[in-house]
């Protein structure tokens, strides 16, 4: 087989012809290599074109049109009307839907990050670390429907959580039926369910911190809190950034867990953007505002992610 990407040995000079300059040869070789590279990339590019660019373009078209979802020839352009409808007076998309989405994502990140840092640090000092990591990873491999239903039963008035509260002498709490507690209750479940992957990443990050730093700190007489604050946390920053960004993205796009546990209720207490989009498209046949909502959510996700990256990089430079 000929390796077309390998540099070729200089060819013998042909008789009677003027030799090509090295620059021309280099350009030709570069062109050949580019063609081969693009050929290898073609399947992946085609895949992205079919499953990413086309749907994205179609969604953009729908966000500027009215479509009931039944007949592709029935798409009616309406300009920015769908975006205006999302933010019109009395519309629920900005408040409470988008607000709930941000609160849900923030709450999940805060809980999952704090919990995973704590657990990962503890696991890093234990024996049988693989076993502990596996245990914490189990919720990730369990289906969201099962997780949601189990927690739903645990939260019910006669469920495990209220049983514990009753045993401690407290009254029952209608966790999912009370609008004040419904969103925090779902946030706890989502954070719990996403703890496993965060722990995996953070334990890998902890392993990459050189032991010599801890030894030096011990020689200087630094306490555990100082070591954690001055050594562990700063050196864990890349892993924390990754966990933070991915958890936030997952939180902003969350759908299945809320659909199983509360269906967005009671009232609008747990309504989030992805659920609202699904309802508008598949239940109401309003694909225009559903697509417009998707682009608004995309803008929010992009803005939040860029803000996170900027914040972490700035802190990195300061450090």
């Amino acid at each position, binding site marked *: 087989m000929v390796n077309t990407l390998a540099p070729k040995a200089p060819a013998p000079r042909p008789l009677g012809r003027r030799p090509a300059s090295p620059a021309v040869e280099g350009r030709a070789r570069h062109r050949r290599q580019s063609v081969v590279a693009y050929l290898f990339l073609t399947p992946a590019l085609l895949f992205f074109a079919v499953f990413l660019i086309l749907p994205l373009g179609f969604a953009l078209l729908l966000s500027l049109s009215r479509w009931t979802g039944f007949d592709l020839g029935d798409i009616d352009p309406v300009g920015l009307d769908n975006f205006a409808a999302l933010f019109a007076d009395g519309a629920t998309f900005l408040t409470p839907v988008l607000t709930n989405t941000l609160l849900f994502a923030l709450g999940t990140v805060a809980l999952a990050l704090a919990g995973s840092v704590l657990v990962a640090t503890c696991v890093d000092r234990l024996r049988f670390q693989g076993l502990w990591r596996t245990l914490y990873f189990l919720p990730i491999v369990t289906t969201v429907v099962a997780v949601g239903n189990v927690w739903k039963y645990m939260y019910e008035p006669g469920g495990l959580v209220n049983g514990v509260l009753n045993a401690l002498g407290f009254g029952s709490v209608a966790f999912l039926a009370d609008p004040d507690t419904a969103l925090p209750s779902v946030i706890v479940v989502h954070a719990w369910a996403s703890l496993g992957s965060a722990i995996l990443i953070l334990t890998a990050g902890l392993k990459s911190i050189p032991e010599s730093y801890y030894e030096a700190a011990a020689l200087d007489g630094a306490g555990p809190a100082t070591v954690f604050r001055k050594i562990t946390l700063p050196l864990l920053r890349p892993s924390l950034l990754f966990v933070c960004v991915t958890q936030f993205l997952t939180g902003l796009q969350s759908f299945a867990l809320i659909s199983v546990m509360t269906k*967005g209720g009671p009232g609008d*207490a747990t309504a989030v953007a992805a659920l609202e989009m699904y309802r508008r498209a598949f239940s109401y046949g309003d694909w225009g505002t559903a697509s417009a909502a998707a682009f608004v959510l995309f803008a929010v996700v992009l803005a939040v992610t860029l803000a996170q990256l900027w914040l972490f990089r700035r802190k990195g430079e300061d450090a």
Partner: protein
Amino acid sequence: MTSYGRRRAGLSRRTVALALPSALLGCAAPHRGTGRPGDSVVLTLLSHYASGALRTALQGPVDEWNATHDRVKVRTTAVEFSDLLTTFMVRQAAGRGADILQPYCLWTGQLVRAGVLRPAPSGHAGEIRRGYGTAAAGSASFGGRVYGYPTEAQTYALYYNRRLLREAGVGTPPRTWRELEETARRTTRRDRYGNSLVQGFGLSTYDDSTTVGLTLALLSAAGGRFVTADGRSTALDSPAGRAVLGLQRRLVDAGASDPGVNVYQAFPSGQVAMVVGAGWWTDSLKSVMGAAYRDVGVAPLPVPEPGDRPATLATGFLLGVNTACEHPAEAWEFLRWLNAEKVPVRDARVTRMSALQVSVGSLTGRADDMRALLGRGGDPNLRPFLDALAYAVPEPNGPGAQQAKSLLRKNIEALWTGQQSVAESLRAVRRQVDQEVARSW
């Protein structure tokens, strides 16, 4: 070329581009037949009768049709109800829509506006108007035109647990709202931690039926309506609307209702004394409760004051023909055979659909069929639902009906959970529903 001409050309190109995937999918569509000898027309029927008794019940008459008709055959496909509308959408957009559809009547306006449902030919429309009750025929109509044969018809009535009422010293089910509140208070029981042991009157945020269905049934009983006669704006913000939401709020405040409880589980377990529900539930209760079903009674929906005219809500499904169906005459003929042709069943002459529905514990909007079938050993608990067919009000089914229903549900839940007052709920429903429904028309 004029600007209009350019626009038309642009739309045409876009339509072609968008329709290309559908056309490609269409190429892979199965052969539907021509109707010539040896090449039967095959009609597809998509319903939500996906499992168990419902699937078997529908397959029986379809098999009978296929055995007795050579030129036209019918093939059934089914999905769960929760996937039904989505399946209609996806298959229709891909050019693979079923010839015969069985949508929920709530979606009639939405499907008509989307150009999915074909109006019934005049002969069939006349047969439907003559053969069915007003509520059933109204559920299958939109804008004054009939779009299909009504199949199962559901009316709402009061389910009650005789044992729980007896233990609370109540001999008969309530007939007025005052009696309803009193009975609810007397039957309610809680433990010392506030957990509900018995909910006097079942208000549950569980699904559309337990929130919106119940509310609209009570609203009908109070003489009110959710939307105006033309279906274009909400009419809930009225004395009747205030009375219904006020009743619900008082029940929650008194602790007689616990919206967080799933009544579909709690009532069969003897943890709910009374609940408003649709007729389909009787069959499910029988199988879940076993011998304890003898404690279940059904009474007409209580009215606000003694002497008020009875009224309740009617919902249902219809069997209609897709606009994309290539053999509409054959499809309508099959529907007439299934829904209008009378055959002998248990010493009575009823339609195949009526026999089918009663066999699964449900009803059709053909009151004469229902009386003939239920008069011969049927469940007496179905009678109040049957009687209600005469005075029930059909559920609004305009183009934005599903969205209006969801918005109403959110605000009812907000009322039940103390997020909104009665006045705030009524105002929010009016503002939100009017805005969204206006976009649908």
